[in-house]
């Protein structure tokens, strides 16, 4: 009998040229997933960590993740922000178990190796050995250097109160990473005003992490899947829309202006989610008050590849952190926020409009559901292909909702980086 292991191709090929067909295996293949972590999450890309407002004082820390790796965002004594990998240099223990708190130093419980807030190794018990019968026995070798044995420290970028980090210290600046167009929409929200964290929501979605990026690069679905969007005009076919990207087409902005009034017949003909006679018993849930800083659009949904979605949909604001946990599952962590100078009324408004979003939200709960259904289909037939031809085959910027151009743009970039 031949003992040679059966080797399967690491990933089947890409179907044809272009990106108007995406094979199902990109969502299911474990080797592809490992390479994605290495190429998108652990090198070459800025990943979302958290908000400065979560760690206002020296010693404040909060745990986060980059890809599947646990990291700690910490405010140092001099007021700076560090992002440290949560892995002890000694035996690899993920030593920090609290979600957040305040520390003067980090100590691993296993052998009490101690690190300062910069991640530098400061103490090793019995480093010089144990005195027995007048002699020092054991301990670290005399030439052991503490220097350079600290926690892995990530490259950090802070802009407008938002913290990003990367294991890749050769990475371009955050500003260059976003490119001028996407940066301008980032700065529209984070223009230097102090942020106020309103709270968190966490959901585990049984789907590939890219599907969430794609969901927010897809202006075609909101006016079909989400009754609230189409009925109340928050996002539908007659909304003024523009779809923009960075030069690499990895990030995108879906920009929309709310439609007011009843839609014309062709906008909603055959759209079963449109409920002509729907009205809210308590309209406070949609008590929308335009804000000056919107500068026109009532919604800007930013996808920052690979790990973050920034939501401004009317008065509701959130950071949505994509945390992959395998090819077929990711955690989706929502941090809703307001601005420190908001009135109490505005904060109440943001909180009530949060009913639209999150794991139970009127226009979000069903996104997780349909992503799960797509993943079910992918797993059954990895050789099948998604059809992504809305708006053509190319990936140019567009100004209508019947377009999948942003998803195609993302796959142009994905294919380049993945070499497939």
């Amino acid at each position, binding site marked *: 009998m031949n003992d040679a292991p059966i080797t399967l191709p690491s990933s089947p090929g890409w179907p044809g040229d272009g990106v108007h067909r995406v094979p199902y295996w990109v969502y299911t293949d474990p080797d592809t997933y490992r390479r994605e972590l290495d190429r998108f999450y652990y090198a070459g890309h800025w990943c979302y960590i958290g908000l400065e407002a979560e760690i206002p004082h020296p010693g404040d820390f909060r745990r986060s993740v980059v890809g599947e790796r646990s990291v700690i965002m910490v405010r140092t004594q001099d007021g700076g922000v560090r992002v440290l990998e949560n892995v002890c240099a000694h035996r690899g223990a993920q030593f920090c178990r609290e*979600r957040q708190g305040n520390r003067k130093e980090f100590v691993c419980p296993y052998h009490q190796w101690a690190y300062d807030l910069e991640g530098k190794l400061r103490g090793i018990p019995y480093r010089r050995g144990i005195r027995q019968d007048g002699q020092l026995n054991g301990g670290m070798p005399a030439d052991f250097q503490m220097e350079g044995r600290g926690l892995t420290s990530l490259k950090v970028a802070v802009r407008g109160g938002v913290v990003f980090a990367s294991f890749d210290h050769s990475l371009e600046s955050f500003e260059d990473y976003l490119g001028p167009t996407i940066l301008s929409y980032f700065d529209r929200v984070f223009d230097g005003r102090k942020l106020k*964290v*309103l*709270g*968190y*929501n*966490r*959901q*585990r*979605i*049984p789907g590939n992490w890219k599907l969430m990026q794609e969901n927010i690069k897809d202006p075609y679905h909101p006016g079909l*899947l*989400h*009754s*609230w969007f189409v*009925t109340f005009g928050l996002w539908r076919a007659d909304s003024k829309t523009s779809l923009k990207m960075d030069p690499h087409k990895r990030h995108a902005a879906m920009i929309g202006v709310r439609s007011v009034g009843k839609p014309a017949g062709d906008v909603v003909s055959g759209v079963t*989610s449109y*409920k002509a006679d*729907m009205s*809210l*018993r*308590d309209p*406070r*849930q949609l008590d929308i008050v335009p804000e000056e800083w919107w500068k026109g659009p009532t919604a800007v949904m930013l996808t920052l590849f690979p790990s973050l979605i920034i939501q401004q949909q009317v008065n509701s604001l959130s950071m949505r952190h994509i945390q992959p946990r395998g090819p077929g599952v990711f*955690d989706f962590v929502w941090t*809703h926020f307001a601005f420190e100078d908001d009135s109490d009324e505005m*904060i109440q408004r943001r*909180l*009530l409009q*949060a*009913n639209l979003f*999150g*794991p*139970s939200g*009127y226009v979000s*709960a*069903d996104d*997780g*559901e*349909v992503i*799960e*259904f797509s993943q079910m289909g992918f797993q059954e037939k990895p050789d099948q292909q998604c059809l992504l031809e809305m708006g053509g085959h190319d990936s140019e910027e567009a100004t209508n909702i019947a377009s999948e151009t942003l998803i195609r743009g993302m796959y142009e970039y994905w294919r380049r980086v993945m070499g497939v």
Partner: protein
Amino acid sequence: MNQALEAQAYTELLQLYAEYTAAIDAGDWDRWPEFFTEDCVYKLQPRENHERGLPLATLHFHSKGMLQDRVYGIRETLFHDPYYQRHVVSLPRVLAVDRGRWFLEANYAVFRTKLGEISTVFNVGRYLDEVVRVDGALKFASRFCIYDSEMIPNAIIYPI
């Protein structure tokens, strides 16, 4: 309040809890808002937000009208995978009674069963309740569902 009256009131509270649970496990959504006062507050909130005083909730309703809007959403607008839910609720613990208002706490565990699937633990937490008497009947003036579960398995569509 004498002991007999107290026992009678507690029995009535138990009935409110039992009926609420029966209604939402049966999917009898129209009954759900009727357990609340007109200006009720209903919150489904992660424990972290609750304990740290962060106001965000997963669901945050400020009136019976908003609960009725949710019922409409469950029936007509929220596309979702259908599921059964089954609540197991502990006896309520009376935290305080003040001028006809009962402040109560009860543990709950909710199991979810999707079609063709095994049953799983869906959401675990406690109710923090304020119950008042309106026109002779006990109603929730507020019901906070504070859940321990660190991850929601995709989505929560139906009321807890």
